[in-house]
């Protein structure tokens, strides 16, 4: 790793100040993605600003028909909450217990790994990503492979999830890393049906429009019979071909609808 200092402010304002003052300073969430990146010298921040001591970024609470999750909440904390069962089960299926004890929802969304689980939940539930500056709809937040709408130095404060009538996430594990080889999040919320797919596309998480239309008519796995996804633009690696992933999307979507229904 290159050398850097770690700052541990206890106020969000202070964190913002440090980021402004130090060009090239970067936010540190749980470090579960950032530390391996730093070890490979793929990043050379001038300083890391840890969010771990900032109480404003912590806690999970229900407000009206929304679940508000502080950005520094760990996967383990979200798994234990249970207000949205599909979301808690997704969080409880990330990596392993040690990863879940450190990794945070804010870090996962900011990173937007094409095989990460949380992006599917955020898009599949039409969550709102609340930053120190603005509110961003999940539909606008994910802009491509490891790319988001976040600007330099912008910090995710919380993620607001509408509480759905029905939802489920089904992940086909890549057995070595336990990231999603393909993961599908489906939900029914205020009459809207969403189907969000992770692990499959070279552009990262996306909504499967044909499946949403079919399920809006009939929220049943049978409604997906005969639908297929174009393998063009799907990820190709040693774990699976684009055709394999395209096929898995249909399989996981049906399982998710069955689990949600």
């Amino acid at each position, binding site marked *: 790793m290159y050398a*850097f200092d770690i700052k541990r402010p206890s106020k969000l304002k202070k964190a913002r100040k440090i980021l402004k003052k130090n060009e090239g300073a970067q936010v540190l969430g749980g470090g579960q993605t950032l530390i391996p990146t730093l070890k490979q010298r793929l990043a050379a921040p001038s300083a890391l600003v840890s969010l771990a001591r900032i109480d404003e970024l912590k806690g999970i609470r229900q407000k009206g028909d929304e679940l508000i999750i502080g950005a520094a909440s760990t996967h383990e904390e979200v798994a234990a909450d249970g207000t949205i069962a599909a979301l808690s089960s997704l969080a409880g299926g990330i990596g392993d217990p040690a990863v879940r004890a450190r990794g945070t929802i804010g870090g996962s969304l900011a990173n937007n790994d094409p095989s990460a689980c949380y992006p599917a939940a955020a898009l599949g539930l039409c969550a709102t990503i609340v930053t120190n500056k603005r509110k961003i709809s999940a539909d606008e937040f994910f802009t491509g492979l490891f790319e988001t709408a976040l600007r330099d130095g912008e910090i995710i404060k919380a993620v607001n999830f509408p509480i759905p009538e029905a939802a489920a996430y089904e992940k086909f594990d890549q057995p070595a890393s336990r990231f999603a080889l393909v993961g599908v999040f489906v939900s029914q919320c205020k009459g809207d049906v969403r189907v969000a797919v992770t692990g499959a596309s070279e552009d990262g998480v996306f909504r499967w429009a044909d499946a949403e239309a079919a399920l809006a008519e009939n929220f049943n796995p049978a409604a997906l019979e005969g639908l297929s996804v174009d393998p063009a633009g799907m990820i190709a690696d040693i774990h699976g071909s684009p055709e394999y992933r395209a096929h898995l999307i249909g399989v996981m979507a049906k399982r998710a609808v069955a689990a949600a229904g």
Partner: protein
Amino acid sequence: MTQVSMTVNGKAVSVEAEGNTLLSTFLREGLGMTGTHVGCDTSQCGVCVVHVNGRPVKSCNMFAAEAEGAEVATIEGMANEDGSLGVIQQAFQDNHGLQCGFCTPGMVMSAAALLAENPKPSEAEIRAYLSGNLCRCTGYHNIIKSILAASGQEMKVAAE
């Protein structure tokens, strides 16, 4: 360099560390506590698992500075006060839960975290909990058996 202070196995410690000093490096090089191993150093193998405020953490994937003020528990704290093996350690020895022993500190610390949450885990729960701990020697069977034994349970033998 800044001074980083924490409690390790109940004892207050304070050592100078760089911003990029990992908790694993802090323990092994700063404190000379080499019971915590480093295998992959890429957060894949779990041999470096310690507890931070009661939660299992891969110490190669956390900065020492982030453990400032924390209660850290390592494999060195797993033995009984008189130096004899603790319950989980003894169960590993009795059930041949280790061969070369390299993965064992991480296995024992993960097992201890699991048993603290779930005193009588099923075999499937043990396997799921150990998904981040790799062993190149044992084939896992005897590790699972050891953890079942440590929780006062026997392994169900498959019908012949």
